């Protein structure tokens, strides 16, 4: 239990310390050392608890719960203050409703608000903790250097780095708390902390746009928060059969009809947090935040809390129409967000849409919730976190170097920033190509959906979704590898980019593929086995083939040695015009013109304007349907 408490409390300690650190070098040292401690802590957690299954801890409850309620009230007041300051009354209203509900809960059911075990750990928690502890703290290390450069590039933004790193570390603590909580009140508390962290970090630059987007994120997440409290109230009111606020008891409850309603409400909270449609717009807006924030909160960890809770509740969803409906929300989000990603040229928006899409896919697996799908969902969580973190951080580093986050401007990155381009290449491959992780999960999901009644709907959606996914990733990859000529290498500059975290995460993307059989057999399979009594397995032969493909991919670049100097080099064919290697050619009237290549965005077919609204409408209907179906099941 000490490790759990350490992981929750230590980041808070560091956060407070960072409030007083002004110099970047000192901050770097503090962050790097604490990252080491947190990462080490989460690995220790793995070693210590991986083979033990679910372990529950009583943990001091009275005082802690009181402090949490106090902080919650304080946060509500803070939201009211901010809402008043920026005239966002919707946020005030939602915060007020939520606070009122919490007060009602504390007042009416004070006797029932004690779980026997407040903390717990099982394999799913360990996986989440590893993501938070390793990826999260690497992003924090990256952020130190990044923010220094960021302020250099954006002199107009007020330097609030102390606050920034305070919030980042508080957020890490909250994430650990969230995945270790067995007490739903605690879970809700940490849930709210992540919402507020996200709000503060999105609004970091204090521009009008940033503030507006921060409030949008806040309002949507508060909406989920309200649903969460209502779910807790229902659970507490039906404590006798549902298990009250004890997560383990709720999941083990025999009265599935009663539990389904709060589960769907908490699932709704998950949907808002995971930015599934129709709530995707907050995550897109959140891209105004500095890149480490996007990497940490809006792709690898915080939004994962949304799908984490869905995966937790998927045994409840399994086999119900309500769960099927939530799954469909995910599936529709997957295909629509992937399609819209085709029409985007802003790298961060492509990443955002792809994040939404993948969270949708995870939600689809969790909502339908058979044992194989849960297995696939957890794999997706792992692989997505690693690859997406790399891509966000990479995009941030590239933006600082070339001054743009437009994919078209990344043309020829292999020449200009070779190391960076290779890392981005690996990251993108990690998102959609065999034998990398996301593809393994997608494949497992298809094989699993075949066996589900009405799973054909999902298969159809997945088939189209994966087709469009290939399109938008491959064209980005193409831009990166274009060998442009006469362009300067800009890898090194005045500010040294924080390479170390990037190298480590790149290594993790590859390691995740090589080690995936181990990860699966030590962590995921026992978890699925414990809950469903059966477990999913990937056939040995297929694992061997994947490893063979990975090995081939690692060896193939050696073939570059074969090609050196053996060939005559000619410029590209330009319809017979004499052209220079950088595509300048002799045009008419004796003018030299430049040919440029641009990707297809197919806006006419896949544009935001065309697809977003229908997707949002369908998902809204499906969410309402999930409520109705849960009610009917009662």
């Amino acid at each position, binding site marked *: 239990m000490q490790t759990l408490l350490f992981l929750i409390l230590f980041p808070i300690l560091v956060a407070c310390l960072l409030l007083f650190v002004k110099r970047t070098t000192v901050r770097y040292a503090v962050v790097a050392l604490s990252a080491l401690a947190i990462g080490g802590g989460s690995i220790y957690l793995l070693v210590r608890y991986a083979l033990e299954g679910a372990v529950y801890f009583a943990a001091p409850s009275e005082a802690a719960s009181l402090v949490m309620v106090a902080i919650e009230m304080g946060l509500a007041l803070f939201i009211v203050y901010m809402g008043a300051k920026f005239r966002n009354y919707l946020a005030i209203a939602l915060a007020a409703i939520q606070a009122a509900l919490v007060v009602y809960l504390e007042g009416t059911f004070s006797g029932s608000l004690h779980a026997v075990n407040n903390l717990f750990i099982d394999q799913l928690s360990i996986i989440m903790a590893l993501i938070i502890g390793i990826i999260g703290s690497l992003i924090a290390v990256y952020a130190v250097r990044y923010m220094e450069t960021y302020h250099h590039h954006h002199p107009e933004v007020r330097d609030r780095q102390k606050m920034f790193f305070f919030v980042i570390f508080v957020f890490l603590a909250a994430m650990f708390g969230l995945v270790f909580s067995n007490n739903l009140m605690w879970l809700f508390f940490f849930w709210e902390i992540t919402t507020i962290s996200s709000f503060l970090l999105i609004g970091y630059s204090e521009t009008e746009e940033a503030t507006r987007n921060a409030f949008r994120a806040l309002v949507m997440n508060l909406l989920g928060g309200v649903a969460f409290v209502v779910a807790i109230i229902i659970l507490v009111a039906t404590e006798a059969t549902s298990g009250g606020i004890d997560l383990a008891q709720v999941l083990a409850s025999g009265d599935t009809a009663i539990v389904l309603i709060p589960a769907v409400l908490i699932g709704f909270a998950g949907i808002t947090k995971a930015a599934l449609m129709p709530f995707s717009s907050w995550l897109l807006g959140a891209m105004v935040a500095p890149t480490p924030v996007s990497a940490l909160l809006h792709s690898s960890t915080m939004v994962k809390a949304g799908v984490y809770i869905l995966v937790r509740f998927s045994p409840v969803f399994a086999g119900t129409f309500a769960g099927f409906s939530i799954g469909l929300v995910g599936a529709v989000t997957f295909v629509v967000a992937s399609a819209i990603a085709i029409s985007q040229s802003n790298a961060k928006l492509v990443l955002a849409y792809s994040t939404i899409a993948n969270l949708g896919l995870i939600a689809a697996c969790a909502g339908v919730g058979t044992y194989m799908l849960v297995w696939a969902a957890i794999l997706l969580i792992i692989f997505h976190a690693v690859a997406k973190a790399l891509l966000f951080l990479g995009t941030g580093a590239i933006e600082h170097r070339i001054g743009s986050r437009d994919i078209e401007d990344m*043309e*020829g990155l*292999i020449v200009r920033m070779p190391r960076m381009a290779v890392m981005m290449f690996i990251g993108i491959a990690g998102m959609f*190509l*065999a*034998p990398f992780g996301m*593809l393994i999960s997608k*494949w497992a999901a*298809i*094989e699993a959906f*075949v066996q589900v009644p009405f799973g*054909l709907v999902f*298969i*159809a959606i997945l*088939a*189209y979704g*994966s*087709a*469009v996914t*290939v*399109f938008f990733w*491959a*064209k980005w*990859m*193409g*831009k990166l*590898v*274009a*060998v*442009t*000529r006469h362009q300067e290498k800009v890898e090194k500059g005045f500010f040294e980019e924080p390479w170390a975290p990037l190298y480590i995460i790149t290594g993790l993307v590859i390691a995740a593929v090589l080690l995936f059989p181990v990860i699966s057999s030590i962590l995921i399979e026992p978890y699925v086995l414990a809950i469903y009594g059966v477990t999913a397995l990937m*056939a040995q*032969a*297929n694992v061997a*083939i994947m490893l063979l*493909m990975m090995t*081939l991919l690692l060896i*193939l*670049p050696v*073939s*570059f040695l*074969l*090609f*050196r100097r*053996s*060939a*005559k*080099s*000619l*410029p*590209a*064919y*330009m*319809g017979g015009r004499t052209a220079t290697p950088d*595509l300048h050619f002799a045009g008419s009237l004796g003018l030299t013109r430049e*040919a440029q*290549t641009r*990707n*297809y965005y197919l806006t006419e*077919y896949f544009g935001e304007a065309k697809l977003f609204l229908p997707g949002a409408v369908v998902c809204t209907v499906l969410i309402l349907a999930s409520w109705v179906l849960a009610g009917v099941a009662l």
Partner: protein
Amino acid sequence: MTWTWLIGAVLFLVLAPVIGGLVAGIDRKITARMQGRVGPPLLQPFYDVGKLFEKESVVVTTAQNFYVLAYLIFIALSGALFFAGGDLLLIIFAFTLAHVFLVLGAYAVHSPYSHIGAERELIQLMAYEPMIILAAVGLYMVTNSFYVADIAVSTIPAILYLPGVFLGFVTILTIKLRKSPFDISTSHHAHQEIVKGITTEFSGSTLAQVEIAHWYENVFLLGFVFLFFSWNPVIGVIAVVVTYLAEIFVDNVTARVRWQAALKSGWFAAVLGIVNLAVLAYILGYMMTGGV
């Protein structure tokens, strides 16, 4: 553990280029006859590839050779997996990986013609991917296995359950075989499409590798067609031949369409597949279980 799977893989690696080249030769001969010409010798595709290896090696960037080599290797590997009886979905994804390498090769040369070819190749990929996944799922629903080894020895006449899926598959087969009306990213022989689309900057031995990879892939595709009929090998072989002849016929009587039409056709074919599978799963399944 049996080693029969290895035999299938090795036989494919060795024989597929021979069979693929011969099929290409027959294809050109029949095409010529359809147009009232004599046509090239049967072994012409081998002469062409042999010639390409004799040519001087010319590149825009050496990186292009790497991507094309990777394309060839992964196409061969995926096909070998197919004939070793592997998991159909994994094979499909491995093929996607191979094609992405080809596309990257075209991007790497940074040439306007290659670039357009690469984009169009990606559109084609996007057009056929849903249908090919659904075809695998359809075969699973009938035979209860994703493994080619199991599907191939199944005694169930898959085609009778999957006519829509087969029709859809034949549609995207036209894209995969690079035949008219869908040969929008590169085209064979006398046709030209935005110079030579994705292969514009590949020449000599690099182009030969693209060609050999295409042979490998064609043999794999014909093997895929065979799976629909594998309950009876004789009918299976006849079906493969008839399908290919039909593709040649379509190639010769249609004009090339725009990419929009190619994309819509591919996706509509997938709808056909979905309808077929829905009927199979919900109506036939209902009837077979006696309406329970």
